């Protein structure tokens, strides 16, 4: 057992670090949850992809570098340590792409992946519905068979990135009206659709911080051709589960962002915290330890995958851990900022010592999305500890 990287991995790290050092924008980009910020982030995706840094783990033919999972982790560490912008393409890259690699046709891979890698097509996820949040099995939106494709109807909501994105992916029920069938997981189809298609209405929703980070989508007989179905019609649940595993596990929250945030937190603490405030000191230490624990847990998981293991229910451990760590990190930072902790990042007198306010608000959503932490704890208890199913 060791924690040393190979010479090739170290060379990969050095190459990524050198590239990032010259390319990362000197000033932070405007929030990607605004129209202006979205287009600035799209431009950054193009910069990344021009040198094949946008999707390092993908095969070269789709714009990647064929990087191993450890190299991907290394890239993420360097990316966040360099203070590079958040990824506006993450829904596509982290959620849709893994599903396509597992269930997509060659035609779909060739058509969809390159423009995703380049930022030319930015994807929104359209999972949730007004009556179906973490309980995806109770989805009601429908896909009705028509000549050469499907007609989508219904309402999706809290769709991340949908206010400004180009296309979306989600699950639709084939068995119209029968939302409480005995097997609610059956009869779902995984489909992709353009957000500017005829019959789609996008209404941005203000998030807790007021930014239109997500949207509700009203679908009225939106035509989708057969080639935009992923996997078999009616098998959407199984297809989607491969995606949610990725979402909760490695790809949504690589450790790099937490180790980088922990480093920034320590710098903030050293720059002027009251040395006698041991309660605050202990919280800083716990955040640092938590980030390290998450990094090491991920290394161990990556080592298992590299040795031929599969990603399983342990992704639920990850999801609960990183979402709670993220809040603790940001709350500690805001407390360190004292009276400045309440200021938005856009405030004229906002502290220049790292933008914590926006990250804090975003961290609050962590225990809610990608399957609430309550759902994750049920999964942990039932699948990892073998406890019986019960009333929720």
């Amino acid at each position, binding site marked *: 057992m*060791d924690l040393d990287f190979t010479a090739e991995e170290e060379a990969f790290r050095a190459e990524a670090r050198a590239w990032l050092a010259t390319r990362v924008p000197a000033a932070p980009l405007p929030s990607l949850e605004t129209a202006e910020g979205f287009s600035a982030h799209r431009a950054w995706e193009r910069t990344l992809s021009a040198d094949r840094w946008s999707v390092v783990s993908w095969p070269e033919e789709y714009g990647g570098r064929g990087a191993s999972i450890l190299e991907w982790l290394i890239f993420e560490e360097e990316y966040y340590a360099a203070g590079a912008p958040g990824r506006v393409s993450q829904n596509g890259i982290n959620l849709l792409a893994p599903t396509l690699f597992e269930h997509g046709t060659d035609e779909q891979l060739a058509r969809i992946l390159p423009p995703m890698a380049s930022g030319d097509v930015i994807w929104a996820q359209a999972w949730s519905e007004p009556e179906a949040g973490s309980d995806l099995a109770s989805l009601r939106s429908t896909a009705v068979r028509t000549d050469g494709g499907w007609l989508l109807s219904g309402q999706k909501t809290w769709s991340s990135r949908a206010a400004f994105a180009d296309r979306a992916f989600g699950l639709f029920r084939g068995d119209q009206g029968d939302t409480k069938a005995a097997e609610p997981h059956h009869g779902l189809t995984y489909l992709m659709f353009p957000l500017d298609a005829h019959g789609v209405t996008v209404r941005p929703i203000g998030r807790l911080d007021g930014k239109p980070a997500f949207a509700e989508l009203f679908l009225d007989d939106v035509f989708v051709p057969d080639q935009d179905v992923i996997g078999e019609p009616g098998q959407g649940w199984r297809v989607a589960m491969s995606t949610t595993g990725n979402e909760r596990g490695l790809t949504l929250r690589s450790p790099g962002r937490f180790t980088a945030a922990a480093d920034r937190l320590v710098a903030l603490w050293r720059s002027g915290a009251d040395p006698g405030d041991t309660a605050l000191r202990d919280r800083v230490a716990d955040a640092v*330890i938590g980030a390290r624990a998450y990094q090491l847990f991920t*290394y*161990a998981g990556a080592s298992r995958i590299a040795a031929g293991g599969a990603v399983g229910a342990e992704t639920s451990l990850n999801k609960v851990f990183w979402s709670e760590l993220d809040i603790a990190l940001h709350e500690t930072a805001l407390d360190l900022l004292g009276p400045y902790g309440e200021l938005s990042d856009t405030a004229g007198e906002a502290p220049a010592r790292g933008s914590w306010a926006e990250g804090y608000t975003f961290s609050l959503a962590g225990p809610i999305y990608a399957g609430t932490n309550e759902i994750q*704890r049920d999964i942990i*208890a039932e699948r990892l*500890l073998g406890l019986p199913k019960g009333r929720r």
Partner: protein
Amino acid sequence: MRFLLDDEQQAFARSLDGMLEAAGTPAVVRAWAAGDTAPGRALWSRLAEAGVFALAVPEQHDGLGPLPVELGVAFTEMGRHAVPGPLVETVAVAAFLDRLGDDAVAAVWLPAIASGKTAASLCLLSDDSPYALDAHAADAVFVVEGDAVRLAAASGPVQPSADPARRPARPLGGTVLARRPEVAAAAGHAADVAALVTAAQALGLGRTLLARTVEHARRRTQFGVVIGSFQTVKHRLADALIALEFAQPLVRAAAVALAAHDPAAGREIAAAKVTACEAACAAARTALQIHGALGYTAEFDLSLWIRKARALRSAWGTPAACRARVLAP
């Protein structure tokens, strides 16, 4: 990078686990707490035969080590079975003597530790703890003060611990064994090793507390259903698992860092110590709560694990000291 135990390390863990399971440690723990050290020393010999203490002793003194990763594996299994005695302290003495730079002293004690003949205890007076664990049951009690190390001649009255199987006492008197500038550095190294294996031991304790509680929750019925089907029970157990799962890689990485003489090893060990001990204590609280009054019953073996978890939290680095060290420049 391969951050996983290899086949040999896993086989070692399994064989120790099997041996300790068969040994029926709860009776050994209860005897030890009552002052009867014979069953504990018999088990000590079997652990020595399995190579546990040799892992802490360098090859030139009849050992196999020092092998921090394997020591971590061994202490996790010993924690899993709540093995009593100055296990941590004996390994720490080996680490101390290995770094002392006095071959004559090392040649006397290290082979005896490796073979299991000698159970030792250690008191680092500079480290703010006035006690030596299980001094009454140890063959030798080493006391470090400044640049001198002495062998204690006697010990004061046993101070009852949160864990009745831990019997701390003040070491008294004795003669100076060595006085040299390397003593402080060797003591620091010994404290690191002690903190590391204490963390591993806590991890094992926590694993058993969780496993037994999960078993209980699957069997115990109330209101006509097994209590493990209640969401609040499930979520407490899930949280206990999360805490242990994320503590484990910290313990392993700390051992790897120590083995590699990484300058950050002390910080890694402190992170592992506080996290593993907190996870074990949280598992103990959860175990107690879900077992209800059974968990509060001393005759029930679970109490042996619950009480040891609390005691290890303060041993070889308090949570506050560990957190301060994580942030030390």
